[in-house]
């Protein structure tokens, strides 16, 4: 199962480190990552593979939301299908 992690908010040091730290601990593999900064808004999109994940989806989602709150950015974890279904036939 694949999922997309998005991070939106003000840029600061340590965002990627914090997110990837959680992914390493939960055994989630990063397949692709891209980031841009537009008008000081930081956006990062990460495609991850959850097949080896060692916790529940809800647990991972909770961990990511929590770290987002600490960093002052919005972090979302969503199953990949919502994006592929909306934009691909």
């Amino acid at each position, binding site marked *: 199962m694949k999922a*997309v992690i*998005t991070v*939106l908010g003000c840029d600061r040091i340590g965002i990627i480190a914090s997110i990837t730290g959680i992914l390493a601990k939960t055994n989630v593999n990063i397949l*692709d990552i*891209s980031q*841009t900064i537009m008008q000081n808004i930081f*956006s990062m*999109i990460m*495609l991850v593979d959850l097949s080896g994940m060692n916790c529940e*989806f*809800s647990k991972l*989602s909770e961990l990511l939301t929590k770290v987002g709150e600490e960093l002052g950015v919005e972090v*979302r*974890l*969503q*199953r*990949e*299908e*919502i*994006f*592929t*279904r*909306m*934009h691909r036939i």
Partner: protein
Amino acid sequence: MFNGNEILETIYMISQENLDIRTITMGISLRDCASDSARTSCRKIYDKISRYAQNLVKTGEDIERDFGIPIINKRISVTPVALVAESSDADNYAVFAKAMDDAAKNVGVNFIGGFSALVHKGYTKGDALLIKAIPEALSTTERVCSSVNLATTKTGINMDAVKEMGLVIKECAERTRDRGAIACSKLVVFANAAEDNPFMAGAFHGVGEPECVINVGVSGPGVVASALKNLKGADLGTVAETIKKTAFKITRMGQLVAQEASSRLKVPFGIVDLSLAPTPAIGDSVAHILEAMGLERCGAHGTTAALALLNDAVKKGGVMASSYVGGLSGAFIPVSEDAGMIDAAICGALSIEKLEAMTCVCSVGLDMIAVPGDTPASTLSAIIADEAAIGVVNNKTTAVRIIPVPGMKEGDVVEYGGLFGRAPIMRVNPFSAEEFIQRGGRIPAPLQSLRN
């Protein structure tokens, strides 16, 4: 691989433009819950709903979390209760509403639809008892919704039922006068009712439906409105094209959620209802879409044409995005539940007559309209008759959900809060239809019903 802009577009639609799945509605057949004892029948109804829907709310919440899309309501529709209650010894069917309400509370859904009767050609004993019980049922329960289908293109209009429903609505209002006649907001009078409609208050599980089914209603007026804001000055062909593309994307979400819910609950997927359902939230209004097309206010001349374009484009965009489309599938125009409609009614741009014209080209009908408390029952019946005629002649579903608020007059505003919003009391034509309504009988099916 994935495209960053597309991902951000989806996230923006959800977080900024109120894109959501409006409802996952589980349809449950109660046909095997009939019994000669009302007590036994009510117990069977309670047990069956509790058993079938025990995981509905949790599954909805799981899907919401996994995909990051809000699912606003989880609801239940059941077989029209008149059909189930009819075999019983009960002479007051309010006990069945109580059983439905208790079951809905038990499984945690906010509404349960199906305290209903289908009387388009005439009443059975059970239909008559059910309609009689509607005011008590809706004023003593919290979550039960009721509907009555009193006309179809095939059968014409049952004017005896039209006459009675005017009185039933008045009694519903009277019994809940201390709560702004809230009972009326849970009662829909239909022509050509859809058997698989997932939206309340008019949802019921039709007789041709399977044992249990999942229907999904999508929403997203805010997404359409903001797509149009970028199109200032573009011609209407471009407008239609943009609405189509947006509707496609919205509906794909509905299809995904419907399939997911169906497989997790192990219940067959019925339909996706392609409706634009507004809420009182800012940025979630159908009226604002029409205004984004260039009308100063919803209700201005041109509104019917703009709505026709919108309704058609939503269907064209949505139909390819879902494998099974059904229900009401069209833009809703409930006055009290749409910030733009409320403003338009308050400033005098929108009248009941204009709304009636608008219902010719969209789903569903005169919806959540508050009128003065002293409106005669025969006038309410006449409003129902007009809507039914539009539905019957045009082969479409129409409905009336009207609220004569006791003690209120034109210009007042009744506040409900939550999804029901607030309703300005609208002007009703003061001339009488009493004699016409008193005639009763049945208006014959129109020529267009003879298709064979």
